[in-house]
């Protein structure tokens, strides 16, 4: 019992304490501009203790900002899954499709969100006020869909021949083969892709908000950097990290349900 508590409580707390100490020391020695932990807390208290308050467009509680960001991520992520899953299926099913599109996917995959965003803004220039949101959605979707595409394709290729033989012997139609055999057999792989995609979508949101200046954690971070309120940068970083961690955990739960099934 004692060692159990040590494992999940004491040791992580020691880790956090060490990092805070290093932070404290850094801000006193070589990084004089870096706010100390104490200063950071004092400046952030309002945002954390009243997390849903709205004082102005760019001055809101931290969870309110997080909420805006999450909504935008959800939209872009949904778009990524909607496009990525079918593309993954086509890649897994058709050699010709793979040969045609695999090179271009491999080239587009490593492109950074910071590179996609300007293109997204240009693409939706005609949309007027909506341009920045559409551009951000485009960027989130195109950056986060690759794990879904690739994992789905791998999953489809890994469907055991036995299951396909059953489909053949029963003379299942194409549609039934897809819904009764291919999709259930691929689900565990798909969900691994979904989880990785969500991680990337969350990474991208910050970049997207920073560049478009939309309200949200990323936008707030960038604004406070420009306003020289460095404490809030740290607040945002911590928030982004915690939210990303929680999202990943939630997705792992969903994923493991499909693994055992």
């Amino acid at each position: 019992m004692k060692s159990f508590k040590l494992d999940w409580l004491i040791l992580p707390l020691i880790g956090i304490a060490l990092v805070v100490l290093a932070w404290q020391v850094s801000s006193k020695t070589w990084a004089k501009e870096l706010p100390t932990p104490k200063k950071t807390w004092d400046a952030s208290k309002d945002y954390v203790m009243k997390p849903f308050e709205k004082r102005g467009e760019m001055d809101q509680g931290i969870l309110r900002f997080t909420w805006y960001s999450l909504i935008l991520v959800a939209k872009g992520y949904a778009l990524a899954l909607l496009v990525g899953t079918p593309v993954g299926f086509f890649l897994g099913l058709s050699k010709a499709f793979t040969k045609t599109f695999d090179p271009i996917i491999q080239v587009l995959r490593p492109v950074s969100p910071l590179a996609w965003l300007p293109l997204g803004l240009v693409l939706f220039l005609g949309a007027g006020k909506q341009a920045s949101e559409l551009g951000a959605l485009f960027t989130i979707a195109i950056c986060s869909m690759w794990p879904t595409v690739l994992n789905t394709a791998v999953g489809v290729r890994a469907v055991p021949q036995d299951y396909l033989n059953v489909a053949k012997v029963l003379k299942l139609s194409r549609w039934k083969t897809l819904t009764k055999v291919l999709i259930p057999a691929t689900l565990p792989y798909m969900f691994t892709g979904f989880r990785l995609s969500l991680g990337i979508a969350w990474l991208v949101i910050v970049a997207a908000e920073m560049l478009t200046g939309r309200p949200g954690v990323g936008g707030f971070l960038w604004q406070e950097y420009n306003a020289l309120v460095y404490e809030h940068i740290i607040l945002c970083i911590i928030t982004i990290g915690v939210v990303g961690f929680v999202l990943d955990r939630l997705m792992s739960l969903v994923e493991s349900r499909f693994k055992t099934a």
Partner: protein
Amino acid sequence: MPYLELKSVSKGYGVNGSRSEVLRDINFTVEKGEFVAIVGYSGAGKTTLISLIAGLLRPDTGTATLNDLEITAPGPDRGIVFQNYSLLPWLTVFENILLAVDQVFPNYSPEKKRQHAEQFIAMVNLTPAREKRPSELSGGMKQRVSVARALAMDPQILLLDEPLSALDALTRATLQDEISRIWSESRKTVVLITNDVDEGIYLADRIIPLSAGPGATLGPSFTVDIPRPRDRKELNHEPRFKRLRREVMEWLIASNKKKAVTLTKNLVLPDIMPEDLSVPRQLGGRTKPIRRSEIKAEVVEMN
């Protein structure tokens, strides 16, 4: 006219260089309503043979016909019990069978489909496991679901690929009786693949040995002239049974011996050999002649 006929069928895997012939010159007929057993060594090509009959594979040469029609694709008229059960793990026992029923009898009402599926679950005594998934079943239970699925399709011919090989002796005997009973009730044509000669003799009208691979071929067909119903206990004292078993075993053993035995021997020779002209000079784009001593191993045929 035979019901099922394979004429000089051969089948191999791989392409060109690495190609190996698994089945060679297979000739094989089955009459309607007949129960034929094929026995052979592990890896001889039994699953390959049954896949050819099922239409999952096409022969490289020769033809396979059912009812005088060439077998080109699998279909529900040939119920197959796969060696590894091949149940869909995300469906329950009932759903696995219902999927087949749904496919073969699309005109049934939903109620009738359900009844039909349940009838076959009951037949293999799995009603209590109706809502279980394959991962919750024992090997023998999976085997039975697989049999029930094949039978529920009401196929013209039943192909059983070592349906009992994964089971312990007791369960195996029970299911053998089950298969025997099902067959005598439905009089379906059955091709049973097995690695157990006794099982083949106990169940079948004819038993055919498959020689050891590679390039396995079927031996003579031995008619099992033991009247049914056969009694397992008495069978062991039955002279016809003993004689059949001996003959089939002897044929199988002889087929394995006849095969040229090859062994790979390592060559440790000093580099004083003259150039070997039978070895290609320009292997892999190099112009230097290859010396025998550079060959690390070679296959030598022993007789």
